[in-house]
């Protein structure tokens, strides 16, 4: 009754065509269909923020969208930022400021920061804290995460 439907999306600039069940969540699509396991799955009901990705430029919970809704959309995930050999400025700032410990929440936090910094490249400390309020981290206490974003704004004017 819910047959496969063909969709085409662009993820990190690369086009993918897949056939999906309507009930396939965007988070599971990225991980299981495309093998992009950088997007982490935490609570699967929109609370933790670990699966945050950008859809057409806006941060969204990938567990609260269906892949079929992304037909024709441009998606950005953490794999589109940098590589281990060449971190993006945002990733480098997280590394330099100890903005992560276990790293589970980090992809979602990075993608939230990308959205935040594109919209508010000179965000204040309060705006950074508010912007990150939808992403749970159980290791860092957030201080180093906020410090990483602040340092990037100081050094690179928010160019993520």
């Amino acid at each position: 009754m819910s047959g496969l439907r063909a969709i085409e999306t662009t993820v990190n600039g690369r086009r993918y065509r897949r056939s999906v069940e309507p009930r396939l969540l965007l988070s599971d699509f990225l991980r299981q269909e495309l093998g992009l396991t950088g997007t982490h799955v935490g609570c699967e009901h929109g609370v933790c923020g670990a699966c945050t990705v950008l859809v057409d430029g806006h941060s969204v919970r990938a567990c609260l969208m269906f892949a079929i809704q992304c037909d024709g959309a441009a998606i950005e995930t953490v794999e589109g930022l940098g590589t281990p050999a060449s971190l993006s400025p945002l990733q480098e700032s997280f590394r330099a400021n100890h903005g992560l410990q276990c790293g589970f929440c980090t992809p979602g936090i990075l993608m939230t920061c990308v959205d935040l910094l594109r919209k508010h490249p000179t965000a204040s400390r309060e705006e950074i804290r508010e912007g990150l309020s939808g992403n749970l981290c159980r290791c860092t206490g957030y201080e180093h995460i906020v410090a990483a974003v602040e340092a990037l704004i100081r050094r690179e004017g928010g160019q993520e």
Partner: protein
Amino acid sequence: MKPAAFEYLRPTSLDEALEALHRHRDDAKILAGGQSLVPLLNFRMLRPAMLIDINGLEELQVLRVDDGGALRIGALTRHVTLETSALVRERFPVLGEAVRHVAHLAIRNRGTIGGSLCHADPAAELPMMMVLLDARLHTRSTAGSRVHPAEEFFEGPLMSAIEEDEILTGIEVPPLPAGAGWAFEEFSQRSGDFAIAAVAAIVELREGTVAEMRLAAMGVGPTPLRLHAVEEALVGQPLTEAAIRDAAAHARQEVDPETDLKASADYRRHLVEALTERCLEVAGARAAGTPAAAGVDA
């Protein structure tokens, strides 16, 4: 993959969506922003046979002021659109302030006003704003359209007047009195959480006395509430410190909240009193155009 299987329709017109909803009304859900619906699907607390995705309906994405000065908000307007709209900021600043308290960045990027109103959570900001602003909610089905005053639309926790074959298409917010003061005060445990309680006010002063007063509260009853008795007691009075304190104590008497895991009934009553006092101070200062108002940022 957690949701149960469903059929997926993405209509390209409102009529097509209404037809589909009419045919499948016993077992279909409307998918707008999905920020309340999809968690329920993921938990399988809901297992509709069909989802009708209305995100393609551009006719529900308007945001404009009509000739009469009323704000017309299409049901698919996303929270982020209200939050960043210059029109909302200039003409209905209380709405712009309240929407910043809705959940978090990524939720506001997807969530829609129509979805929030139909979900009818008694501790959600936008239902309360509709009640405060005397909004009229427009619903449609294949049988015709209806208009609901906001106070009648919300019937209980997660219950509204919308019928299963209807779609909320838009909201009409009448213009505010010129120079009206406003305030929105919320208390929640963490930024972005559902409120434990919130109060909002609209105040119009004429020659130093209250010409119009609107006071709404949420988190303290099965629906967002207007505190009509408190409003009526203030009309015609100067908004003095003593009047504000009396009104706040009055507001405390008017609400009948329940105790739950987050807060006791008495604590909620206390919050209503404290938040009412703050709201009336801030809204009164804004209405009076006193210098204090400029420095006040709820």
